[in-house]
């Protein structure tokens, strides 16, 4: 599912329509902004749900993303596709939430993450049910989940992920590798 964030605009007419909506929203037209929200929110919400691993948090981050977009839109010069810009704000909103959580919860430790990993490997409460990849992704530790979703679901390069998460590329590779291993094991069950 490694599709480009700009896939929300599918035709030249659609692109023209989007440009018009952006221009109106930049002038403060909240109706136009609402139309942009309806176009892009489902894709951004899918991304945030996977990154956050929690629907309620993803909804908060979605709100945060579009609030930042509303405030930043007058200054946005359209150098990238709107979907790409929104995608970046969403990823940063998620990373900001992760940072805040880490600061609040200084007790989070490698041991805690290992407990979460053990939780993934535990047998399903409903034996025989089909693997729910979404649920397995949500059960990954936050940083590992972020690395996996950005790399294998969203198609970022390791270097890009390293840059935006301020983490060494080697660490990202190791996190993605571990996530693949854990998720593949679940698939084989």
């Amino acid at each position, binding site marked *: *599912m*490694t*599709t480009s964030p700009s*896939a929300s605009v599918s035709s030249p007419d659609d692109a023209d329509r989007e440009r018009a909506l952006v221009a109106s929203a930049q002038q403060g037209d*909240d109706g136009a*902004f*609402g139309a942009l*929200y309806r176009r892009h*929110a*489902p*894709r951004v*919400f*899918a991304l945030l*749900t*996977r990154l956050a691993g929690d629907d309620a948090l993803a*909804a908060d981050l*979605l*709100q945060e993303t*579009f*609030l*930042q977009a*509303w*405030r*930043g839109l007058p200054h946005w010069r359209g150098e990238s596709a709107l979907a790409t810009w929104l995608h*970046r*704000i969403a990823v*940063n909103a998620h*990373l*900001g939430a992760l*940072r*805040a959580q880490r*600061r*609040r919860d200084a007790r989070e430790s490698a041991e805690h993450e290992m407990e979460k990993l053990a939780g993934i490997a535990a047998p399903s409460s409903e034996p025989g049910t089909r*693997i729910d*990849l*979404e649920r397995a992704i949500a059960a990954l530790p936050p*940083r590992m989940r972020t690395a996996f979703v950005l790399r*294998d*679901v969203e198609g970022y*390069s*390791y270097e890009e992920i390293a840059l935006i998460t*301020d*983490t*060494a590329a*080697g*660490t990202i*590779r*190791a*996190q*993605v*590798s*571990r996530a*693949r291993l854990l*998720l*593949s094991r679940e*698939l*084989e069950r």
Partner: protein
Amino acid sequence: MTTPHDPQSTPEAGPGDALQRAIDALPAERTPPVATWLQLQQAITGSAPVSAASPPLDQVRTNRRTLLVATLGMAALLAVVLATSLSRVRRDPVNITPSALLPEERRDPRVQAVIGETRNWRAASRDSVRSMRWPREAREAVEASLAATEAALASARLSLRDDPGDAAARDAIVELRAKQLLMLQRAMTLLDEI
């Protein structure tokens, strides 16, 4: 955090066929809750009535922003007052550089923590998306506090170089570094939560 690179996992290896098929089957879109848009709409238009039970998001943000600016301003002011009161006679801005660290400071993990947190602060300030909603006043207060603290530190170091037995200067350095670390950590926590 550093994790050794797993040599068996290369970027070319990919997630494997079964996992890749499962990833490909993931939905690209999900319908967000209706309430998310309604709250967002309230925030951007400010047209909805203000309820004590559920204040509009923007109002909540404005209140938090005001509180944040006041809190950071107070913390920074205290840091400046502290730095001024602890500063020695001579002040030489040329010495406000990491190279001015005393040998014992270089070995002190607390100093390394402060340097690391200052580096984090600089990186966060340069990240336009992360710092997009940081109030300018709060950012300036933090920067002013950093500058005042560094000036006071430089002055205390000069005193220690002249007189290695100057216990007051030594205590001042420790206290200034501790305050600087606390202020930076608090500032970034609060700013990230806006």
